[in-house]
Every structure is written in structure tokens, then in C-alpha cells.
């Protein structure tokens, strides 16, 4: 009953956030000459925020299950930093007029493709360490080292980009996250990745549930632990890449959304994953509305909004769970 009510509330929140995002923003919908253009632009933003939020929140629920650690987010695998680096390199190639950027794809698809290639390469490195008897600590350390390496390279690219004002602005904007510059074609490219990724994770819910008992117990109960981990790592990387391709580097969504929902829908992934997709989407759409309407000279980066909201929410959830532990 509690779960059903939660799902209804999540659906209402999602519909409300989408309606608000379509109605609110610069420009008046009362003007019939602007209405369809404004609605089209806003719908693209809503779609991007929905996809990125759903992907990051689902990825968060899955990695928290695999690592049995509620403090991890999809970025722990290093594939997020890989996707981000890939996106930055793609932008660099595009702005510098590299022939690589115009080989077979249009300019607007270079960034998402860069993110996918970056995530794919980092995923290949992670998977090469993800064998049957590899401990989760090795995976976490591999992800940490990859993240550190890719962040260092990203900083290097940012320093290179300072030579060009446009490039510098684009890189910083991408790093801070935002759905303002997403095109419908980018959305169409990212949507199947997010959809398939969420369904793929949901189909392995039972494996993820059993991994909550630890690898030895899960294995003794019939889980092919190595295969389950590789499956989860692969789809989390796909989700992170798709999210970054349409939303840039947005933090905290994958951390706080699963945390918020576990007390409401329980720890079973079959219920948790769809709820995360709904709330993650609604949360990021709402954050994008705030980014658009916040009175400032330029639009606030989405990553800044999620950070400002996410950090205190996370601390609150942490304090609540600590209280529950201390009160038994």
C-alpha cells in the first residue's frame, strides 16, 4: 500500500514538474508567434533533464546495491569522468576544426558521441579488472584511479581551452552541467540508451537484491557474481554516458534519490529502480526550472543547483539514518 501511494505521488510530482517546466521561463506563451517555439525549446530541455535525472538516479541505485554502500554514486566507476573527458575532447575537436569532428556525424552529435566513447573506454578498463574473483575494493580503487586520471586530463583540457573564450565557456558550462544547449537529435540518440539501460538494470533486480548479502552469500545462493557485476557496471556506464551527453556533469542525483526512496519503497531493486527513474527525472526537471527562473544575469548551471539542494538533503538523510541506528 505504502509503495503504491509512493508511486502515485512520484507520478504526480513528475507530471507537475514537467507541466511547470513547460509553462515557466523566459518569454510569454501568450504570444501566439512564440508559443510553439518556446514550447519546443522547453520540451527539449524537459526531455533532457528527464533522461539525465532518470539515468543518474537509476545508476546510483544500482552501484549502491553492487557495492553495498549507500554513499556511492555512478561516478565511483570512473566511467562518469571518462564520459566527461570524452565530451570535452569532442568539444575541443569541434571548436578547433579537427577533421575528426566532421568525419561522419553532424556537429551536434559530436559531443554525445565523445561522451559515449569516453565512457566506453573507461568501461573497458574497469571490466578488465572485473573478473569472477575480483573484490569490490579492487573495483572501487580502479574507479578512483580512473576518475583521478580523467579529472587531471579534464583540467589539462580546461587549461588548454583558456586560449579561446568560446571554448573556455563551453568547457566550463559542460563541466558544471546543464540542459540548455541540447538538441532534439541528441535527445533521440540518448533516449534509447537510457530506456534500455533502465530496463536492463531492472531485469537484474533479483541479482542486485542477492548481492546485498555480500558476494560469498550471493554466490552460494546461485548468483554468478562476476557476470552480475559486469552487467551492472556496463549498464551504469551506459546510463552515465547518456546522462552526461544530454545534461553535462550533474552531481548528487545518483546519491540522494535512491537514499530518499529506500525508506518509502524498500530496498528491493524491482521496486526501487522504477521509483528512482521517476523521482530522478522529476528532480532534475524541477532543478532546471529553478536554474531558468533564478534571478541572475545568466542561467545558473544545473550542477550548482543539484549541489546546493543535494548536499543538505544528503546530510539530512545521513543524520536520520544515524538516529535510526543509535535508537536501534
Amino acid at each position, binding site marked *: 500500500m505504502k509503495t503504491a501511494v509512493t508511486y502515485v505521488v512520484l507520478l504526480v510530482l513528475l507530471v507537475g514538474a514537467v507541466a511547470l517546466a513547460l509553462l515557466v521561463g523566459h518569454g510569454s506563451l501568450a504570444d501566439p508567434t512564440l508559443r510553439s517555439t518556446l514550447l519546443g525549446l522547453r520540451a527539449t530541455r524537459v526531455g533532457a533533464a528527464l533522461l539525465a535525472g532518470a539515468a543518474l538516479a537509476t545508476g546510483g541505485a544500482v552501484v549502491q546495491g553492487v557495492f553495498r554502500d549507500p554513499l556511492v554514486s555512478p561516478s565511483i566507476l570512473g566511467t562518469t569522468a571518462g564520459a566527461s573527458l570524452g565530451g570535452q575532447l569532442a568539444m575541443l575537436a569541434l571548436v578547433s576544426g579537427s577533421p575528426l569532428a566532421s568525419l561522419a556525424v553532424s556537429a551536434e552529435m559530436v559531443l554525445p558521441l565523445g561522451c559515449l566513447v569516453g565512457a566506453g573506454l573507461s568501461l573497458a578498463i574497469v571490466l578488465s579488472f572485473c573478473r569472477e574473483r575480483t573484490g569490490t575494493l579492487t573495483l572501487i580503487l580502479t574507479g578512483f584511479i580512473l576518475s583521478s586520471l580523467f579529472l587531471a586530463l579534464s583540467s589539462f583540457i580546461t587549461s588548454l581551452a583558456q586560449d579561446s573564450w568560446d571554448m573556455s565557456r563551453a568547457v566550463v558550462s559542460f563541466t558544471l552541467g546543464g540542459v540548455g544547449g541540447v538538441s532534439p537529435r541528441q535527445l533521440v540518440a540518448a533516449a534509447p540508451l537510457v530506456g534500455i539501460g533502465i530496463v536492463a538494470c531492472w*531485469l537484474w533486480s*533479483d541479482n542486485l537484491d542477492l548481492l546485498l548479502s555480500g558476494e560469498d552469500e550471493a554466490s*552460494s545462493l546461485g548468483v554468478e557474481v562476476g557476470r552480475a557485476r559486469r552487467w551492472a557496471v556496463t549498464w551504469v556506464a551506459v546510463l552515465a554516458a547518456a546522462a552526461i551527453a544530454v545534461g553535462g556533469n550533474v552531481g548528487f542525483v545518483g546519491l540522494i534519490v535512491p537514499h530518499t526512496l529506500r525508506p518509502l519503497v524498500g530496498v528491493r531493486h524491482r521496486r526501487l529502480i522504477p521509483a528512482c527513474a521517476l523521482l530522478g527525472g522529476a528532480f532534475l526537471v524541477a532543478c532546471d526550472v529553478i536554474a531558468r527562473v533564478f534571478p541572475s544575469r545568466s542561467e545558473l548551471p544545473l550542477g550548482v543547483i543539484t549541489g546546493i539542494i543535494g548536499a543538505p538533503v544528503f546530510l539530512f538523510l545521513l543524520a536520520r539514518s544515524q538516529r535510526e541506528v543509535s535508537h536501534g
Partner: protein
Amino acid sequence: MADGALIEAQRLTVRRGNHVLLDEISFSLGAGQVVSLLGPNGAGKSTLLKTLAGLLPFSGELRLDGRQASQLDRAERARLVAYVPQHSALDVALPARDVVAHGRFAHRDVWGRPARSDESAIDHAMDLTDTRRLADRSFNRLSYGERRLVLLARALATEARVLLLDEPTAALDVTHALGLLHRLRDLASRGALVMVALHQLNEAAQTSDRALLLAGGRLVAAGPATEVISAEPVRRVYGVEMVPAAQFGFRMPTQKDATP
């Protein structure tokens, strides 16, 4: 292979780096008995149970219900051998019944759909362990003893014929410990092979049909419990003298006790 043996190990050896954890252990065990796994700390009891559960690589030969262990896939093995660790890593707000339902994972079809027999198997496992009353309670809110029973129910829900338990009575009070050992005897009488690592020799003597005594990764003695838990092997392995008759002991109450 011995007729009817559920577990047959030949020169079973487990290494970690250059360190030999189990050294050429051979034994054969059939259904319908409780087998105690004895030995001081570090003797290799937990290592042997984990190896039988398929959690550690080994050399030598291991046959489970007549089949080479290496030829069984994870699900086949889980349907044949259930393992209850000494310390479970599970510590989440999952209803106890859902935890027991994890024991049915290996019975799912290729699409991951539950088997028809799942509900009855879960109910039966919870009845055997008297955990139906805990069904809706969160696992992480249960007492240690209650958790042990729920984990035993999870193992029973697999309907495996071999049950491996690593020090199930550790940290249990006398009531829970005796109750659990009583249930293990009951399971053996229903045809299961129950292999249980124990520290308390008196518990082992009261509960087991057979015993394996390990020391330093080697099998020192194997046979009927009354022979293995006797003065000479105990002195040799533990360095203590057995007292022939305990001053007092405990057992589960019977109907006779209730009669005035």
C-alpha cells in the same frame, strides 16, 4: 565413489599464495546425518565449508551427489548445497520473508521468473525454523539469534540436500543454541546431510552422527562422533584432557519433562 555419497572429497587442497589452507583432505559423507566439523581456531573448518560451497578454488577431486563439482554451474550447485556463513553481510531493511525467498533464486527459470513451488518452499522453511512470526519484520531489526534462524530458513528454502553451517551456535544463548541443534538433527532425520562447524565439543557429541577433526589444514580424525570426540584425538589436537562425565549438561525439554 562410495555408494550414496553426497560429498566425496579426494586429496582436496586449498592454497592461498604459498600458504596451504587445506592439505589433501579426503572423506566421503552420505545423506541423513549430522556431521560435525571440529578443530581449533585456524584448523581450516571455515575454509573447508567455503570450498564445498564453491566459494574457494581448490585442487584435488570433489564430487557432489556423484557429479564433479567443477561441472556444476552456480544454480545447480546452489540447489544441491546450501551454505550459512558464521557472519552474514546482510544488514538491510528487508522483510525476513524476502530474505528467506532469496533461497529460491537458483530455482528461477532463464527469464528469472519464480517457480510455482516457491511459496510453499518458503513457508515450509519458515515453519521448520519457527520464523513465520518474523516474516514481516525487517531483517536488520532482528536479534542475532533471530537472524541466524532466518538465514537457516533461507538455506532450507533452497531445498538443497547438503546443508553447510559455519559455527551456527556461536554467540547464541543456551536456549537458542540447543533449539538450533535440535532443528539440525530433525533436518538430518528428514534425509539431509548437515555439516556443521562447531567449537563446543559437548554440542558436537550430543548432536552429531559423525565428526571430522581438523588441525593445521589436515584431517586428523574422521568417523563416528563418539570415536572422534574421545580422549586421544582431543588431547592430540586441542592439548586438553577430556573429563569423562560432565558435572551438568543441558537438553531440550521433552513431553516427559512436562508431566508432573
